């Protein structure tokens, strides 16, 4: 079966620095894949290559079998490859509902309609409200983004992404910068996402990874060090040694249950 998202020998160099080095990943439909790695491993660059912010020097990216290596960001979104942002990137002056409505309207091709009232498009509003409900934001749907907590903003990010009907969803450190109490709400929401969407999560926090991932890849120095089941990866000596020396050791093993 064709994978939802597949990369072959993806490379990106900045000057003399190989930031992404022959990365090959495969996400089947419905994947719950986490990408971990120390700071500077090239995780963010990889996301930028996948989402089209940057162009790969060499290698290929296939989305459901179609080559999107040189497609624009907009084109990738239309084809079902959607990302969220490490730092929330929303319409801050608009309400939660309006944010999600914008995405729904764009996805349903309604944004070219110039003469029908948006407020009378019950279909679009109901779809937006259903997604907001799904992420547990219903009570705040009329509040502006600038008025809600950061953790909720992350949820709105995901709501906007979901409105675009993704086949593949890239979650770029969704838990970064939010209190742990809210992290668990966020993960609950991620767990309720439609099972057929393939999700690639870039994440530092091992608690989050353990709860979310069915498969983990470790990126070090731009290369995939290993890919495997979460417990395999987390018990690997090689992976441990990569994180050693960075204060990460404690954080890393924190997610492993006591034997």
């Amino acid at each position, binding site marked *: 079966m064709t994978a939802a998202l597949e990369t072959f020998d993806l490379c990106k160099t900045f000057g003399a620095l190989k930031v992404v080095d022959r990365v090959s990943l495969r996400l089947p439909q419905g994947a719950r894949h986490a990408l971990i790695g120390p700071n500077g491993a090239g995780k963010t660059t990889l996301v930028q290559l996948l989402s089209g912010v940057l162009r790969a020097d060499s290698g290929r990216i296939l989305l459901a079998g179609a080559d999107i290596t040189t497609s624009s960001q907009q084109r990738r*979104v239309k084809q079902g490859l959607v990302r969220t942002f490490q730092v929330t*990137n929303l319409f801050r002056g608009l309400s939660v509902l309006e944010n999600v*409505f914008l995405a729904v309207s764009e996805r349903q091709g309604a*944004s*070219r309609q110039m003469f029908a*009232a*948006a407020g009378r498009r019950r279909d679009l509003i109901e779809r937006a409200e259903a997604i907001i409900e799904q992420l547990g934001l219903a009570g705040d749907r009329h*509040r502006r983004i600038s008025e809600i907590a950061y953790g909720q903003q992350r949820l709105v990010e995901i709501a906007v992404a979901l409105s675009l009907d993704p086949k593949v969803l890239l979650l770029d450190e969704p838990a970064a910068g939010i209190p742990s109490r809210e992290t668990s709400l966020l993960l609950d929401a991620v767990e309720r996402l439609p099972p057929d969407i393939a999700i690639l999560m870039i994440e530092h926090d091992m608690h989050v990874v353990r709860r979310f991932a069915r498969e983990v890849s470790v990126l070090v120095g731009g290369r995939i060090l290993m890919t495997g089941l979460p417990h395999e990866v987390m018990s690997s000596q090689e992976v441990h040694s990569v994180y050693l020396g960075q204060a990460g050791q404690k954080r890393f093993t924190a997610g492993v249950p006591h034997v």
Partner: protein
Amino acid sequence: MTARSELLERHSYNPIEALYWLLLIGTFFAFPNYLSIATTVVIMALFALSLDLVLGFAGIVTLGHAAYFGIGAYTAALLASGGWREPIIDAVLAGLASAGLALMIGPALLLLDGLPLIMVTMAVSAILFEAANKASWLTGGDDGLRDFSFLPVFGLFPWSVYGQTSYLYALGWLALLFVLVRRVVSSPFGVALQGIRENRARMRLIGSPVIGHLVRAYTLSAFMAGIAGAVHAQTNKFVSLEVLGIDTSVDVVVMLVLGGIGRLYGALIGAPIYILVKHFAAEWNPYHWMFIIGALLIVAVRFGYGGLLGILGRIEAWFARARGTRKP
């Protein structure tokens, strides 16, 4: 915090709006001697409304909107001089001429944003001004165009000396295009424009054809500005270079800021305030009327982001709160 989404409720009318239109109609009966200045008010309100569509709703900052007003005015006058004297179709053709230019330069122009966009829009209108000045065989240069006239509106209402026809004709265009703009800003397209104004880069990432949307809004706005220019030519029976001047571009921005940007009625209220204050201040002191306009502008910007409508909105909210706290 609002209980509902203002953005998605733009299509619903508020009964208080009727008051505004009744005032305009009432002016016709109450001030028969002031119809000439009232007609100017209505035309500038229409022009400011066209600017509001781009500046207020799409966030396109321009200091060159007179280009479209001027093209409309000259097109209308030239068509009439050439023998096409039916006013309504004349105005529509003038609007299309302006829209044509916007559609041509829009795709390149709207890649810009902020200060560069302001400079380029100014440059475009300055070039047009100079071109019109040089092409005096066509435009009459400094002397302007006169000696053209129009057939009665709908074939029924001749252009009277006292300006009744002019006023109602201009008012008709304003009402018609107001309904149009209102529909457009309430539509999913209008919501998308709001998104572009808020965060252009993000709109692109939800797959929105940002430049396409902006070009459409800009073209529609130019069409309206062109019609405003045409009505100006038709009701004054005279067109001079002034319609293309930088003053015209700046005036209309000031009107919009005074009334409130991005609120539809901001344009409709800003134009009468500006023109009436200017008129009466100039009567009071012909040298220092700018001082009064300047003071008003400072008040509007300092105390009322959102112009006069913004101030009214906050007074209303204050009363609502005061009432709320008195209740047990």
